[in-house]
């Protein structure tokens, strides 16, 4: 409980400092809008040209895009310490100062950064979700709303976990490892579309190893009344838990990696 209070206070302070330069903040937020808006424009143009993707109608495609975008950028916003700041903390030796404080490393790293500029990306994602649910005429029920919240929260853990793989590499090699981007940003790019359209190797990668399909897309399929796989309906509520499992495993690996941490000394 204390930790959560600490996190909220840190976020408040960081936000205050970010808003000290309103013009710069405004421009950067606008740039983010252009970025995610561009992605959405690409989706609109794809739908304009191709109409549908197998059994997935335009509304479904907007919904898949939206759920991925909202989850990914919520993580980038509130998990900025892990998703963006960590490699430079190792390189600059700032991580050393965290080691002497009476809190966990992950907590402190999470408390060290926030990225409110992502708000426009989240807004674009939300728009896509609304358009998708309108076009596909989703009948919202309590169960579906609950599942949506569950998918987004476990998706948060999943994406945070995947970025922590990069952090682990970083502890060992100091240099940030671009390779991990293949599952983080690559996963975001690929799983803006339902994973079933991909050939088997990619489908396995995004179901079993970086389980975007299980955490976000199986629930999305349930909400759209078009199951992603031929699995019974109740599995939709179980699948997102795999995000927590992945996070747990990587969290343990991260703690082990910290034993090998050597300061860069700068």
């Amino acid at each position: 409980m204390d930790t959560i209070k600490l996190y909220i206070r840190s976020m408040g302070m960081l936000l205050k400092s970010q808003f000290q330069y309103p013009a710069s903040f405004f421009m950067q937020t606008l740039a983010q809008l252009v970025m995610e808006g561009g992605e959405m424009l690409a989706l609109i143009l794809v739908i304009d040209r191709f109409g549908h993707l197998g059994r997935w109608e335009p509304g479904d495609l907007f919904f898949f895009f939206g759920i991925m975008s909202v989850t990914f950028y919520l993580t980038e916003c509130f998990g900025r310490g892990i998703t963006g700041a960590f490699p430079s903390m190792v390189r600059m030796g700032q991580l050393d100062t965290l080691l002497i404080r009476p809190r966990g490393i992950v907590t402190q790293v999470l408390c060290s950064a926030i990225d409110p500029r992502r708000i426009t990306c989240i807004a674009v994602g939300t728009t896509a979700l609304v358009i998708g649910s309108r076009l596909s005429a989703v009948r919202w029920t309590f169960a579906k709303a609950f599942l949506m919240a569950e998918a987004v929260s476990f998706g948060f853990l999943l994406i945070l976990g995947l970025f922590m793989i990069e952090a682990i590499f970083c502890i060992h090699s100091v240099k940030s490892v671009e390779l991990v981007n293949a599952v983080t940003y690559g996963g975001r790019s690929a799983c803006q579309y339902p994973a079933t359209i991909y050939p088997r190797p990619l489908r396995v990668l995004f179901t079993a190893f970086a389980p975007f399909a299980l955490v976000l897309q199986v629930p999305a399929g349930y909400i759209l009344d078009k199951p992603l796989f031929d699995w019974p309906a109740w599995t939709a509520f179980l699948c997102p838990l795999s995000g927590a499992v992945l996070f747990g495993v990587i969290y343990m690996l991260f703690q082990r990696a910290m034993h090998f941490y050597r300061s860069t000394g700068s």
Partner: protein
Amino acid sequence: MKSYLTVFRLRLRMELQYRGAMLGGIICQMVFGLILIALYRALYASRPQTMPVESVVTYVWLQQAFFRMLLASDPDLTDKIRTGAISYDLCRPVNLYGFYYFRSLALKMTGSLMRAVPMLLFAAVLPAGWRIGLPSSIPGLILGICALALGLLCVSAIENINMGFTMRTLDSRGVQAMLNLLMTLLCGNILPLTLFPDSWQKVITLLPYAQLLDAPIRLYTGVYALSDAVRVLGVQVFWTILLVFFGTWLWRHNQKRLILQGG
């Protein structure tokens, strides 16, 4: 002229130093290429288009291979602008614009070529339907390479204009970030320009961003016929000259009203 070529050569050597970091980047770019191709193949399977899927596959591979040309920018210069160290560069007996133009040219050229060669080799040995297609003709290939060289000259001019704006605002994350993001969309990196609505393409292909990679790729794949080549190269030359002139003017103007930060 000789001093600019030396700047170019020095920067070239520096870029060649980081071969290890490059490997991860290349593999990552390959995965992105495979994902995009898988997506377009699935889209084509549900509704075939007049343009063959092989042409889209080739487009994606060439875009991924030369991706570095678009977004590699000179980190030193941004720092120098913010810290005021750019004042040392003002003492040099060379034109500041030319100095940085050739630096950025070298950065973009080595950065993209070192990545492009292994990427294209990888893309050539993939199974049919996934591999990069052969050029439509030998002249098409030669014209494509010429167009790519012009694209490189053009993108360096755009880069210097972005830097010119950074000198005014001191912050490289606002307007310039937006211009860069527009670039990835309008040069065909997010979605091939050949898949944009046909009516849009008439305008988009004339914009400077389309001159960087889209024009060379279309010459390579034969979407632009050889008889169009003069017009295509002409548009590229036109934009390059115009952007260099605008950039030079902007930099000269900036130098006159330069206020140094810090010391």
